[in-house]
């Protein structure tokens, strides 16, 4: 039992961080960022390069991931999404663009970082073992704690900083935010960069545990979509809740349903469909039109 909860919490923390970036971008620009998973992979590879290739400390790698992804996010917003949003008749056109960017990043990652699985050495060794009731390696505890710290940091930033407030205002009412003197273009760009950065940071954090490879992008995006559907798209608390709920469901499902074979994810999906049929806007979301 303790083990299930701990696993769920650890998974939930990293999921929440992934979902946060996605939901931030969605709330600011109404863009469903298909390339989110690829950005995560990119972050992993940057940290890998800095840590394993250049031999620099892990924290430097993490910072590098953050910076590189923030720049990529900013560029995507400034030169791609902004133009397409202005020119297209239907909002959904951004989906094609996002998918194109996902393919593009996949290609770039393949060319730059290669097709192989990469990993960096463990940052801390040892395993926490409480009487066989709860087993958790220390590096996972550390990463989980870091992820939770970042989620908290992000919430505080959005809640109390000027920039955070501006972005929340932007998400709630673009026009009113403009009237408050918020430069909407600039803050959209910052928001997009921030969202991409979060994806990159998760990639950098997890490369120490799961390693990274080209194939992780797509499935990560799908999982992130799941989370924001559970919690409600475009709502920060929803993303966090969605992340932790999915983490718990996975942890519980894998333990309880192990005997039945391959059904955990089917069960999760089925639950989700039923849940959305009852509550189309997710846990905390607003109905979307």
């Amino acid at each position, binding site marked *: 039992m303790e*083990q*299930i909860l701990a*696993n769920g919490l*650890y*998974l939930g923390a*990293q999921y929440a961080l992934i979902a946060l970036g996605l939901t931030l971008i969605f709330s600011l620009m109404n863009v469903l960022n298909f390339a989110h998973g690829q950005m995560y992979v990119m972050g992993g590879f940057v940290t890998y390069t800095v840590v*394993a290739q250049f031999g620099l400390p892990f924290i430097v790698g993490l910072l590098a991931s953050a910076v590189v992804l923030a720049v990529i996010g900013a560029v995507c917003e400034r030169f791609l999404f902004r133009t397409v949003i202005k020119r297209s008749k239907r909002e959904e056109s951004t989906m094609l663009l996002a998918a194109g960017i996902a393919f593009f990043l*996949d*290609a770039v990652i*393949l060319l730059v970082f*290669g*097709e*192989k*699985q*990469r*990993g*960096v*050495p*463990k940052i801390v060794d040892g*395993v926490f*073992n409480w009487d*066989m009731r709860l*087993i*958790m*390696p220390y590096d*996972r505890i550390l990463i989980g704690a870091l992820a939770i710290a970042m989620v908290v940091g992000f919430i505080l930033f959005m809640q109390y900083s000027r920039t955070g407030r501006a972005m929340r205002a932007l998400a709630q009412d673009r026009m009113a935010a403009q009237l408050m003197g918020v430069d909407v273009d600039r803050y959209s760009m910052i928001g997009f960069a921030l969202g991409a950065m979060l994806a990159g940071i998760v990639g950098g954090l*997890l490369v120490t*545990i*799961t*390693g990274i*490879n*080209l*194939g*992780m*992008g*797509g*499935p*990560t995006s799908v*999982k992130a979509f799941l989370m924001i559907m559970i919690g409600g798209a475009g709502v920060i608390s929803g993303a966090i809740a969605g992340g932790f709920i999915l983490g718990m469901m*996975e*942890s519980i499902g*894998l*333990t309880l349903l*192990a*005997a*039945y*074979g*391959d059904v955990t*994810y089917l069960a999760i999906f089925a639950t989700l469909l039923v849940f959305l049929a009852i509550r189309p806007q997710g846990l905390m979301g607003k109905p979307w039109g």
Partner: protein
Amino acid sequence: ENATLKIGFVGVTSGPAAAWGISNQRSMETRAAWLNELGGVQIGDTTYNIEIVAFDDQKDPKRAIAGMEKMAQDGIHYVVGPNVDDGAAAVRPVAEQNGIMYFPYAFPKELYTAPASNAILGMVANYQSGPAIYKHLMETKGVKKVAFVAANESDPLSQRDSGVEAAKALGLEVVSDSVTYQVDTTDFTPVLLPVIQSAPDLLVLSGVSPANAPQLIRSARELGYTGLISTETAQDAQVLQEGAGELANGFISVGGASTPELASDAMKEFVERYTAMFGEYNDESNTKVYALEYIIETLKANPAAIDNVEEFKKTMDTFEAANPFMVGDAKLTYVGTSSFGQKRQVSVPLVVNEFQNGAFQTLFVAKVD
């Protein structure tokens, strides 16, 4: 000027599964460049330069068919690939209609058993390596109970099923065989917990991808598992080292078809040339270099096969040539009679490795018939 002999490759070289096809394509290109540098290959009275025509099927069976059509269009009769079960099955009609021999890296027996006759398995299948490994471990390590985990995808699942079958046939007790995971799992602890609790002596990671292997090993060890861990697929030593470090020590896997003890000078040169061309070597290419070699050598043995695969098939039964990549007097021959009832498999040595401190050491070498 030499004539050109085109050899095809249809497989996945982009997207998530790029690793599988890329090692294929690169080992073919390395070998072709090398042969051309030596003045080409003489088949019959003609000397040919080898040209590799590669098609990226994006791991999509529908695209794989298009790739095979493209090969047919180019007048190509010998194709390496595809890399996965569904692609290999999907191209079968095209290959048969257009007279193409193809060398899939996929295990379904129907591909190689009559009435199918155009596919040649390019490596050792898990249902061949599995029993060999289990038997070895039963004899040397006293293994009695075995557990299987596999990713929830076609290839690994069918490999698990045949592994379970083989283990039962050997009289092993299978204590867990229903646990699966999504390939994108980031934490294997919940996945492995019930498996470890079933207390096996041997944990088999069926069809595990290089990406998942280190994590699975790590999780199992961190959960306190002390038994043996093995897989029937090839792995990358560096990936294991980066991903699991010393926790991966003792991990048993099927190696590329060449270990230091077996590798000839030609294999060493191949590795050098590959590294020079593409920056980084991939151990799997030890196996994947063979397909091209088999094609060329068989054509040399029967030049009439150059545009007639029926001739090729005839030659296969009796074909034998020197194996340049192995020391000693190893031979290139076609095998597979016991698995498929006909010779539809290249003979590469089955090398079983054990991971120790960042490198593979040969545990034993066997042959498939």
